[in-house]
């Protein structure tokens, strides 16, 4: 892997040299911008990586206003403004859950900035970190997507019960996950049919960048019911209720399921 472009010292690092730079663990949710309400195109992991800051400091970018272009071994590129990295951090990731990355997840290394959607967060199969001032024709930019970086919107999902399931009338535990990286999840609310939002119980927060599990018991009369969920981020941002498609800025809306107690 190389650090090139508008830097004081260009670097070239082998995999072993990268591992010896000092690996740190961090917990964070990675969300695909194509994820839809109720979908599973996201996951929460314990990652292992080198902080981008320590790596870039060795090379010495010529300007803090420049961009970091991350390049994959097949030429795929993605740009992150350096000022964004100063706010959000970011890592050159080499492992997940105590193991090296698999090829599907970007072995030997990938760039991940918690709080930025997957396709904007950096290249997998990393081969180059390039500092440049000029705009870069990123892959997704050429495909009509919004110029990045695109931040993950606060969102929540109902895991149980499944949409369309038949359940017994009476007390029903509703469980799920919510995420709002990097600030974290402050509250999760559940509503049944056209009722008011009521706060759910939150599990302990692993990290603000991680997802947070929640549960809420509901009492259902016989019939068909809608159950909705929303979350509030630690920075006060409330999950957007307006239903939008993932393209071009990420999905919004409330995950809603229907259950039948008949």
């Amino acid at each position, binding site marked *: 892997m190389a650090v090139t472009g508008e830097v004081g010292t260009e670097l070239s690092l082998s995999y072993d040299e990268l591992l010896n730079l000092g690996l740190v663990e961090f917990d964070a949710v990675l969300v695909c911008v194509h994820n839809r309400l109720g979908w599973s195109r996201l996951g929460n992991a314990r990652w292992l990586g080198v902080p981008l800051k320590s790596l870039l400091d060795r090379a010495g970018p010529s300007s803090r206003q420049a961009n970091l272009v991350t390049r994959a*071994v*097949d030429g*795929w590129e993605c740009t992150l403004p350096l000022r964004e990295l100063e706010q959000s951090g970011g890592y050159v990731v080499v492992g997940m*859950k105590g193991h090296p990355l698999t090829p599907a*997840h970007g072995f030997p290394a990938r760039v991940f900035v918690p709080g930025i959607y997957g396709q904007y967060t950096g290249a997998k199969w990393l081969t180059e970190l390039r500092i440049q001032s000029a705009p870069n024709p990123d892959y997704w930019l050429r495909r009509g997507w919004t110029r990045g970086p695109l931040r993950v919107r606060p969102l929540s999902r109902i*895991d149980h*019960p499944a949409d369309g399931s038949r359940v017994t009338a009476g007390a029903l535990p509703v469980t799920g996950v919510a995420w709002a990286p990097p600030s974290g999840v402050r509250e999760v609310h559940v509503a049944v049919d056209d009722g008011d939002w009521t706060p759910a119980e939150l599990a302990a927060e692993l990290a603000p960048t991680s997802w947070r599990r929640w549960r809420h018991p509901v009492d259902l009369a016989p019939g068909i019911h809608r159950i909705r969920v929303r979350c509030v981020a630690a920075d006060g941002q409330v999950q957007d209720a307006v239903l939008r498609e993932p393209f071009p800025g990420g999905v919004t809306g409330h995950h809603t399921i229907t259950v039948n107690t008949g």
Partner: protein
Amino acid sequence: MAGLGAAEATAALLRSRSPLDAAGQLATDVGPHALVELVVRWLKEADKPVIRASAAMAVLAAGGLLGRSPRRPLRDLLIASGVAGAGTALLRRRAVTTDGPVAANLAAAVAGAAGTVATLNARRPRDAVLTALGAVLLLAATAAQGRRRAELARTGSTPLARDPLPAAVDGAEHWHGVSPLITPVDEFYVTDVNMRPPVVDLAH
């Protein structure tokens, strides 16, 4: 079928990139945006096998149409040269070090062109034999490419953190039906534009 089988088998033998993967990659990279989004939405994780199968069907359909037209040696030679040239360019596109040198890509493309022309100019039952042979080669090549990728995918020792975090627990371990706090690696979503994830050989 003979051309497809010959190209895939030569690519597998020379450890070059799969021509079908390269064709699928091109369709993903330059296909209409709306169509790509529709594929992502409706096919979900099955998108890549379907794209590969569609590329194979398109090649077979083109071969079938060509086979119905009268034989013209000069035209067939021009088509073969075009297939070989375009095939090589396609195989070099977004290639990585483990996808083989340009000579291997060229050989795979030429084998594909030669197989196609040989079948077009063969009479029954030789064309049927060539077609069957192509199907066998295609299956064998697919298996060989899969084995090679599995070999290359073996990664090294487990890297260790300087200061490991405490165990990941949040008190919701027994909540009914909730997602795991840490998503298992084999269940963690993979969405990218590569037909197959590049396998990086650290020795290169």
